[in-house]
Structures are given as C-alpha cells and as structure tokens.
C-alpha cells in the first residue's frame, strides 16, 4: 500500500468542493442532481478510505448502505424533476415558484 490516507482524503475534499460549487451556482435541476451525487460519492470515498486504514469492515458496510440509499434518492429526485418539467415546461429551478399541485 503505497498511498497514504491523506491522499484519498484530499481527493475527497476536492470532489466535495466541486459538488458544493455546482449546487450553489447551477440553475438546471438535473445538474444540481449531478452535484449531489458528487458530494455523496466523496463521503463514500472517505468511509472506505478510513475503513481501510483503521482497519475494520464496518466502514465498507456503511458505504454499501449509503450507495443503496443514494440510488433511492436519485429515483425520487428524477421523478420530481419530471413532475416539475411537466408542470412548468422547464427545468430551470428559478421557475419553480409555487408548491401548489
């Protein structure tokens, strides 16, 4: 194992910062979902890296749970995007002004 723990943590921080940039700047709903995926993946990378260096297996178990929950979250998020697109005929989040059904 030539790579140290801090290298993985630094890559994870870079991915987190890019995700937060995308979440705060982009106005396209699907691009915001991309940014959320990047943030979740940086958290997963941290979990697996610390689990390798401690070492125990619970970090990997938690990462598997997190990946499954993220899959459910993306399914619901894309369904919401489709509903909003049908309602407003646009995917720009500045247009999503009312929560009325």
């Amino acid at each position, binding site marked *: *194992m*030539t*790579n*140290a*723990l*801090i*290298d*993985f*943590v*630094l*890559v994870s*921080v*870079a*991915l*987190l*910062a*890019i*995700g*937060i*940039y995308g979440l*705060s*700047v*982009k*106005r*396209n709903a*699907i*691009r915001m979902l*991309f940014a959320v*995926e*990047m943030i979740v993946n940086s958290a*997963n*990378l941290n979990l*697996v890296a610390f*689990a*390798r*260096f401690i*070492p*125990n*297996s619970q970090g*990997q*178990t938690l*990462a*598997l749970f997190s*990946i*499954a*929950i993220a*899959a*459910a*979250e993306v*399914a619901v998020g*894309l*369904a919401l*995007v489709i*509903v909003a*697109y*049908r309602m407003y*005929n646009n*995917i*720009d989040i*500045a247009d999503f002004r009312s929560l009325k059904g």
Partner: protein
Amino acid sequence: MVDSIFLALSVLTIGSAIVALEIRSLIYGSIGLMLTLSGIAGFFLLLDAPFVAMFQLSVYVGSIAVLILFTVMLVRRELIFNKIEDSRRRYAGIGLMIIMMLGIGTIIIGSGLKSMETDTASVDYKKIGEDFLTYYSPALIVMALILASAVIGALALARREDVTSDQRAD
C-alpha cells in the same frame, strides 16, 4: 508517496467532475458524471475493497447514470443546451470552491492524518457478508423497505393524471 495509478485516477475523477458540471450539453454532462463514478470505483479497488467497487459500478454506473441519461432525453431539446447563469453568482461560487478546498485542505494537512499509514492486511469481504446477515440484518430489512417505498413513490409521482386508460374493466 502516491503512485501513477492514483494520480491518473484522481485526474480522471476531478476532471470529469468539472466537465460534468461545465459542459454545455446535458448528455455529455451525464457521461462525465458516469466517468466520475467509475473513477471512484477505481479508488475503491485501490483501497482493497473490491466488493464495494463492484457494487458502485453496478448501482451507480449501471443504473443511476443510465436513469439520468433517459431523463435528460425526455426533456426538450433546447433545454438540454440551455445554460443560464448569473456571472456574479458564478464567480462567487468559484471563490467558495477555492476557499473550501484551501481551508479544509490546510486543516487536514495540518492534522495528524499525515502520519497514518498501514501495513496490515485488508479486510476480507466475506466478513461484510457475514455482517450483513447477522449484526446488520435489521438495518438491511429497513433499507429494503426504504428502497421499495422510494421506487413506488417515484412511480406514483411520475404518473400522468390526465391520461385515463380505456381498457379498464369497470
């Protein structure tokens, strides 16, 4: 010291993450996201976690990225290439990103993580399966219920209410 595989993987991951957010077409953006997720799977392989890497490949690259690609294709053509952005907000976002990278990066480099290296053997992935079926089995059942309810909720949300089926029996 890092090796060349690690460097190549990190360049691939960070570069395709930036491409996924900045390229004009959403279709190429989702392909960039797919590359980012594959890069993370490569990191998992480097960390001796092959089970998590395969799970990542099958769940993220196999299902989530394809789902996003199909959703992008459902959207109107001019919206895919549409890119409205406030330029002041964009500069503020880039500043926030650089501040976060530098701030958290210096904190982490200054902390005690730097000296943390390991030469012990990696965890056997059979242990993960045993954990799932013994200690974590209630959590596994709850996660299955969450997944089922999320999928049913997504189907119920995306249903069209203005179309009624003609073949209904009653």
